[in-house]
């Protein structure tokens, strides 16, 4: 864990000096994690890609120009991702959607379908991904950050702007909800 921190801190130092290579390394290290995090929130490959791209750009700008001193680049990335998704939904709500377009948005993307098939091929068909989508965003976030991205409680607390204790409670509740949903799903089919 501390080795990870040292590597990230070195990256951060280089980023502050506008080192594009450092940015490239940051990207290589975290693009999959950020993409995954965003993907489980927006459920669309295209949107996840676009948002992820924006997250890295915004993070770069923040490191260089932001008011706060950044001490944890990973937490910053996830925080930025979180905000980017919120903005995304806010903009989508404000945007005037033509009826046909709205209907189109509901049709699952071909690429998305094949991705789900990919997941299912690895996993027993218990529908954990569906369960995740059904959950409240707060719970979903906590589970993703803790068990998929394997962040520490401290980091998750920074990202979610919560106390550590609150994060633990959140995780506990989220797991319970996930279990319940999974049980219902398996009962029904």
């Amino acid at each position, binding site marked *: 864990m501390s080795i990870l921190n040292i590597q990230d801190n070195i990256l951060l130092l280089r980023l502050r000096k506008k080192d*594009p290579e450092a940015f490239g390394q940051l990207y290589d290290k975290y693009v999959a994690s950020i*993409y995954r995090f965003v993907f489980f929130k927006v459920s669309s490959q295209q949107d996840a890609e676009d948002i992820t791209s*924006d997250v890295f750009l915004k993070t770069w700008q923040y490191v260089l120009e932001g008011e706060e001193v950044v001490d944890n680049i990973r937490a910053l990335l996830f925080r930025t991702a979180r905000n*980017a998704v919120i903005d995304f939904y806010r903009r989508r709500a404000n945007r005037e959607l033509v009826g046909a377009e709205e209907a189109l948005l509901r049709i699952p993307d071909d690429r998305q379908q094949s991705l789900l098939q990919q997941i299912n091929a690895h*996993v027993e068909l218990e529908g954990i991904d569906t369960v995740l989508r059904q959950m409240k965003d707060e719970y979903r976030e906590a589970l993703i950050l803790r068990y*998929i991205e394997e962040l520490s409680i401290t980091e998750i607390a920074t990202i979610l702007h919560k106390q550590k204790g609150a994060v633990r409670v959140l995780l506990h509740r989220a797991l319970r909800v996930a279990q319940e949903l999974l049980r219902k799903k398996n009962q029904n089919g």
Partner: protein
Amino acid sequence: MDNQHIVRQLKSLQSVTPRSEWVALNRDFLLRQISPADQSESTTIFEQVAWTSHFFSRMLFQPAVTMMTMLVVFVGSSLMVNAAFYSLPGDSLYTMKITLEKAQLALTPNEVNKVELKVEFAQKRIAEFDKVVAQTNVSPEDKQERINVVVREFQKNVGEVKDHITKINQGVDGGLSPAMIDGEKDATLRIAMSVSTETRQLAQALNDKTNALPTAEKEQVQQLVNAAVQQAQEAGQSADALIQSAGSVVPTQATTTPVINDGSTSKPQSPTTSQTLNDIRPQSKSGETTESIVGQ
């Protein structure tokens, strides 16, 4: 015990990864964005929009452009532009992409830069053509429609290039003040030369790509492509005309007969033009004449 099961399920979702093609493409895109040396596209749009709309609001005499500028400034974050950048016909953001390109054009004050931009847009259409043809998850009708959209936009772009060059040409012939002609000459000639080459390359590329299509698709799109290719070639020809009328002695391409301008071998007021031309075309066939100009 139940928890462990759930946790295991969750961990299995670590297998969800982004497309490797997108990862690589996006990496390049982002590095270009952050690099201070090359001005990235979206930065240019925002700098132009913010700067120009603030100080030159009088230039935005078209209400549609004003509205779109406002939209871009207030609504368009880099997310929108970035998303639009990658969009293809069929994506909802494609119209936004075209509109952003038009906005960028409207906010470019310099005529010569406008032409450069238009050529760039035409090049983008060719790239989009490739991507659309490569799409596998669309029905043939949709793909056909998307190809048509790209080709039509391409035709518009090169048509505009041609019109623009013609306009500049008419200015050079006698309408613009001598001072303006000389001042813009370097840039104009440079752009005319690059337009001449690039429009021909674009026409060739479009032709080749269309020929590479499967027969059914090719037939559908052939007429449209022929018209677009012709436009591109005409743009190239009007660029050649501009070069000739501006008094250049360098022959352009093999398709046009070289015009040697004897009367203007000494051009004290534009030595840099000849220099530029010589730099661009070191292998010029009319070596003698060029050398006599660049005898400085």
